[in-house]
């Protein structure tokens, strides 16, 4: 049944929910996202629910299922409020202990807590403001955390132009990788003739090794929907699509439920909160095509075609879905919008560095002590992320390289880690922001093999439309295969560089233009490893040629 709600009702629901929350002395948040689920999070959730009932403290202690808290490697993790008590590797048995000691006796169990304090110190949670603190399946939880009050502000106090001005003033730039100023994009779509207009939320997080968008959707799906609604209000759009990878079943569930609930709460549909805004959102599933994240390819996929990019202009802002003006934004960008509207663009621009405001979510993975989901202010250095937050490389091994920006990012050596994280600095070093992947590699990783891995990936994922990407990458792959067989020639290095530059300069879309980055950066920073493979036929990391060696032995 749909409730017919007005703007003031949202504020009332928020107050009521907050009051209900205050009636609990403790709140136990059990992370049940893709990270913690396979480690037994649902059993832990049930253990908490059962124990709380059994001991008879359920009126004073609320147990909730929440999204990602970031410390995915020590799951299942449980976050107890008030106070920031984070328990790691929780089991049903430990759940009982936590209830008995922390909840009943008021004595937190230090031994069971997450101990890497540095992990949170330099983080700044803006996009992930509610991740791990609210139940993603309850719209009331989102509202109680201040959700949809930015939409209410738009509908009651701001004109569409004022909304766009605020977004422009914030300096927010697209978080999908390219970093285009969001305010500019919005004003292009607003000015573009033609109706209806569309809003597309890009959740095709195709980069391997990246999961920040998934975590956002699993933890706080309404933040994405509210961002889309505000965009729809500003641009007078009527239909929205969330394009999500089929490989993310839980995020699909949370979003599906969120859309249903938003419709039931008059937040989607005709006359949103009894205003003149009409907007609805549909979910579209991707089907395993990396290139579908490219903005013209995503449009083709939503229209039910092969996800192949087309030349721009015309840009989607003027000619997008079915030839109509379309705003395409990464979901992280959209989740930034509600706080900007609520607190103002000037407030937002205080975080981060000049020209690159706000925060960025990163998936920190690979050979690092504290892998997980992090959100940091722009301008922080890579070193701080890898060492202060990530805790450095395990087993006392030496860091060899940090790969930033997904498969088409660059591999950067240790001495470049003082680089501040912003779009321009990363590009100068040969990497890209991409959708926010930081993969740490130690001395066990072979950089030639790693570059080959990314090239194999891009060859698989190239859509085949333009020649430089289709044929050029295939040529590059051939060279790597030859080097891998121990038949590399020294002139291959010059060829690799020439071909890479050609692919970068002549490809149609972002996939081809950035695909050579891993080759170019490894050639630039780790040329000695290539020479070892080609001239000495040895792999300094001991990874390659193993099969040949074994074959030679027998």
């Amino acid at each position: 049944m749909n409730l017919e709600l007005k703007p003031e009702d949202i504020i009332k629901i928020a107050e009521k929910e907050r009051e209900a929350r205050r009636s609990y002395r403790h709140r136990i948040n059990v992370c049940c996202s893709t990270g913690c689920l396979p480690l037994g999070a649902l059993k832990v959730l049930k253990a908490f629910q059962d124990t709380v009932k059994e001991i008879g403290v359920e009126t004073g202690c609320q147990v909730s299922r929440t999204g990602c808290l970031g410390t995915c490697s020590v799951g299942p993790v449980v976050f107890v409020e008030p106070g920031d008590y984070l328990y790691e590797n929780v089991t049903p048995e430990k759940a009982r202990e936590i209830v008995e000691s922390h909840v009943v006796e008021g004595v937190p169990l230090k031994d069971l807590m997450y101990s890497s304090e540095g992990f949170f110190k330099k983080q700044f949670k803006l996009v992930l403001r509610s991740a791990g603190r609210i139940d993603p399946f309850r719209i009331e939880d989102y509202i109680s955390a201040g959700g949809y009050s930015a939409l209410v502000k738009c509908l009651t106090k701001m004109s569409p132009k004022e909304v766009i001005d605020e977004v422009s003033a914030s300096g927010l730039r697209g978080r999908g990788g390219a970093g285009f100023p969001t305010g500019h994009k919005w004003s292009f779509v607003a000015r573009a003739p033609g109706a209806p207009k569309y809003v597309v939320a890009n959740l095709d997080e195709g980069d391997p090794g990246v999961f920040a968008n998934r975590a956002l959707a699993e933890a706080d799906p309404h933040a994405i929907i509210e961002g889309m609604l505000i965009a729809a209000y500003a641009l007078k759009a009527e239909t929205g699509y969330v394009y999500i990878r089929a490989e993310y079943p839980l995020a699909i569930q949370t979003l599906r439920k969120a859309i249903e609930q938003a419709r039931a709460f008059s937040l989607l549909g005709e006359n949103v909160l009894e205003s003149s805004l009409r907007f609805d959102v549909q979910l579209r599933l991707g089907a395993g095509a990396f290139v579908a994240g490219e903005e013209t390819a995503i449009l083709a996929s939503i229209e039910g075609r092969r996800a192949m990019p087309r030349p721009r202009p015309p840009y989607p802002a003027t000619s997008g879905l079915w030839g109509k003006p379309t705003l395409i934004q990464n979901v992280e960008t959209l989740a930034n919008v509600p706080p900007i509207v609520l607190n103002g663009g000037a407030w937002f621009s205080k975080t981060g560095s000049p020209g690159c405001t706000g925060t960025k979510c990163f998936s920190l993975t690979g050979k690092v002590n504290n892998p997980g989901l992090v959100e940091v202010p722009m301008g922080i250095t890579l070193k701080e992320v890898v060492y202060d937050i990530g805790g450095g490389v395990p087993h006392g091994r030496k860091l060899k390289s940090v790969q930033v920006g997904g498969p088409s990012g660059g591999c950067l050596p240790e001495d470049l880690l003082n680089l501040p994280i912003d779009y321009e600095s990363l590009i100068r070093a040969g990497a890209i922001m991409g959708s926010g992947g930081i993969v740490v590699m130690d001395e066990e990783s072979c950089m030639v093999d790693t570059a080959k891995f990314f090239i194999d990936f891009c060859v698989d994922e190239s859509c085949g439309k333009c020649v430089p990407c289709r044929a050029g990458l295939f040529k590059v792959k051939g060279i790597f295969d030859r080097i891998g067989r121990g038949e590399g020639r020294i002139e291959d290095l010059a060829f690799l560089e020439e071909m890479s530059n050609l692919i970068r300069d002549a490809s149609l879309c972002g996939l081809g233009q950035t695909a050579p980055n891993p080759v170019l950066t490894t050639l630039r920073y780790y040329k000695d490893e290539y020479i070892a493979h080609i001239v000495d036929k040895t792999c300094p990391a001991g990874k390659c040629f193993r099969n040949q060696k074994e074959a030679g032995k027998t």
Partner: protein
Amino acid sequence: MKDDSRLLLLEKTITQHQHRKDSLLEILHTAQGIYGYLDKDLLLRIAKSLNLPASHVYGVATFYNFLRLKKPGTHTVTFCLGTACFVRGIEEIISAVENEFKLKRGETSPDGRLSLYVTRCIGACAMAPNVIVDDEHIPKATKETATEMVRALLG
């Protein structure tokens, strides 16, 4: 294709989408969910009911990695080949399972009991390397745990 209840389910979805051509990808997802894979007859039927050329439907079905045109084995093992899993040694795990069960990635055993697949990142990178055995996600997998799981599965 003789199974009427499954066909009804598929047709219901097509009707819900009002036979719109742009719903093709959604329909293919549903069809794969119902039948497990997309065979030629099924693709032809979908082409007909959406009034699309068969070549277009085939083109879309073959473009996307997630869509399967061959019948999967009774049991499936999917290895995550994302960057984090690669750095943490998924290749060695894949090779171990391939050698143990005499099967290459992407193939199904002749008796139809086991299929090996690779996928490009399931987004559980902090627990790399990840393997999915049937519907169960095995985080922080090793050569030993992965082969043992598969062996147990085949009995």
